């Protein structure tokens, strides 16, 4: 019984999709990906970039004032004012310089710079996705 019906349906032609349908589907997907990037990723990374710049400014100010308070600049200037003494006691001089560095403030500042650069990198990459041409073949 069922063999009869299988033979029957074998006569029914399979609808052929239009030749350019695959291209249209892929273009739709590229478009969707671009829209999603425009809607979510690009603003997120742009906000991250702006936010990290805003954080970098006070972080730099903190580093600057911490360096001034720690006497690091004065110690460093000994290289120019008293180079012979510095060379004679170079190991103690280095330790003294390192101890006077405001390490935490510098680390915080570098983190904000890193975040800024990473946000910029991803924002540029997503911008390229948005601007990339559609497939035309």
């Amino acid at each position, binding site marked *: 019984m069922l063999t009869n019906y299988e033979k029957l349906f074998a006569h029914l032609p399979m*609808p052929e999709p239009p030749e350019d349908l695959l291209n249209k589907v892929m273009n739709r997907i590229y478009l969707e990906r671009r829209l999603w990037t425009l809607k979510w990723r690009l603003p997120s990374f742009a906000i991250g970039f702006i936010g990290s710049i805003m954080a970098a400014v006070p972080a730099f100010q903190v580093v600057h004032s911490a360096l001034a308070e720690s006497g690091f600049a004065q110690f460093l200037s000994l290289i120019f004012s008293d180079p012979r003494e510095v060379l004679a006691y170079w190991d103690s001089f280095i330790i003294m310089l390192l101890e006077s560095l405001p390490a935490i403030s510098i680390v915080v500042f570098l983190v904000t710079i890193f975040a800024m650069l990473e946000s910029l990198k991803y924002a540029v990459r997503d911008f390229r996705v948005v601007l990339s041409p559609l497939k035309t073949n």
Partner: protein
Amino acid sequence: MADYSDEQLIKDYLEGNKQTLEVLIGRYLKPIYGFVYRYLGDAHNAEDVTQDVFVKIWRNLKKFDRDKNFKTWIFTIAKNTCLDFLKKKRTVVFSEYETEDGENYLADNIADLSPLPPEILERTDIAQMLSAVMQKLSPEHRVVLFLHYNDHLTFREIAEALEEPIHTVKSRHRRALIMLRKLLDT
């Protein structure tokens, strides 16, 4: 890449190989287009809805459970997309042989499903006749017949794709054949 299984193509795509998506879509473009065309009944809408289907497949590819059958998963998406399209168009889809309560006087009045007489298969206009007759069936009945006889899905796969119990699918298949037989005889 043409030899890769569906699961391998999906895995490669999710790992960053964007080219595999086009291979995967190309593999299922004709069956899905055929399904949508037959469900909706016209070529223009079939093209748009087919695009919608593949966009949905792409969007949900990360959520696809790779222990499940990819083919039945995409046919499920295709069916749901067709239904959403018909709902948006507010198309009341019915068979002229069914009442609002789902009673089908054509199928209900035939007790038995007998084989097709050979002369039907020998008709020169069999393809046109069959196409015309299939349009008279409701989409639910059409879909079961097309999926089983044209796309060669088993009843279990059809049940998974349509998200219905297997006995419902089998029952619908039988009623569809009965109606088809009656329409071909007239």
